[in-house]
């Protein structure tokens, strides 16, 4: 049977890949997808702990994370669209109007 640590290492690797992508990519849509990847990594941890403790609460938490991620994707993409209208670019280095 697959041990808990295997799931947690998978989750950690997935989270790190998402975090690295979020920091080093500049396209805002790709950054949003990296965010989704990180949320999924955390969800794997939740489901794994739920399974190995025999407790359903972890899956409830993962369910709420999925709900929040869906809302976040809708809002984030709307923000990206309005940002694109303002600066005509998807580059996260583009909008610097607030820079002093």
């Amino acid at each position, binding site marked *: *049977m*697959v*041990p*808990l*640590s295997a*799931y*947690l*290492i*998978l989750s*950690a690797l*997935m989270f*790190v*890949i*998402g975090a*690295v*992508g979020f920091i*080093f*990519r*500049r*396209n805002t*849509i*790709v950054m949003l*997808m*990296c965010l*989704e*990847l990180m949320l999924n990594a955390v*969800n*794997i941890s939740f*489901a*794994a702990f*739920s*399974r*190995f403790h*025999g407790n*359903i*609460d972890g*899956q*409830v938490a*993962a*369910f*709420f994370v*999925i*709900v*929040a*991620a*869906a*809302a976040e*994707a*809708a*809002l984030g*993409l*709307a*923000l*990206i*669209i*309005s940002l*694109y*209208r303002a600066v005509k670019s*998807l*580059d996260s280095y583009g909008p610097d109007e607030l820079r002093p």
Partner: protein
Amino acid sequence: MRVEFWSGIYEGGSFLVAAGLILISSVGMVLSRRPLYGALWLVSALLGTAVVYALLHAHFLAAAQLLVYAGAVVVLVLIVLMLLGGNPERYRLGAFGLGFLAIVFGVILVWGLTPGFLVPLWESSPASDLGTVQNLGRALYGRFVFPFEAASLLILTALVGALMLARRLK
């Protein structure tokens, strides 16, 4: 005993395949310069995650993963890419610049995150019908009924907010 042996082999093999799919797709998503290909890599990473949920006996989560993520979120991302035109990024990941920094940062982060996980923890697995819809529904509508209703409010707010944000301002 033979049945247990083969089911263990099957479970381990499925986990390895799903984990490999997830990791390769994640790296492909981060490295692909066209956002469209990144979105397709993301779909395959999410499918692998659904397989991992199924292996963890989280049946409802596996189904919700396919419906909500692969069905709704990725389609939303693809529609926005279609509207805005996903041009490849103009900068290059230099051989010794950003790429090197990314690898160093990632290795440090993995090194910090994993040692606590390497200890073998719980080996036994109770209650194989844990994540059925009945159990999850009982928890959601029992102890977690208030967060559940709050989540519906959150989705409504996000819907209205997204409409407001994406509306063309006169």
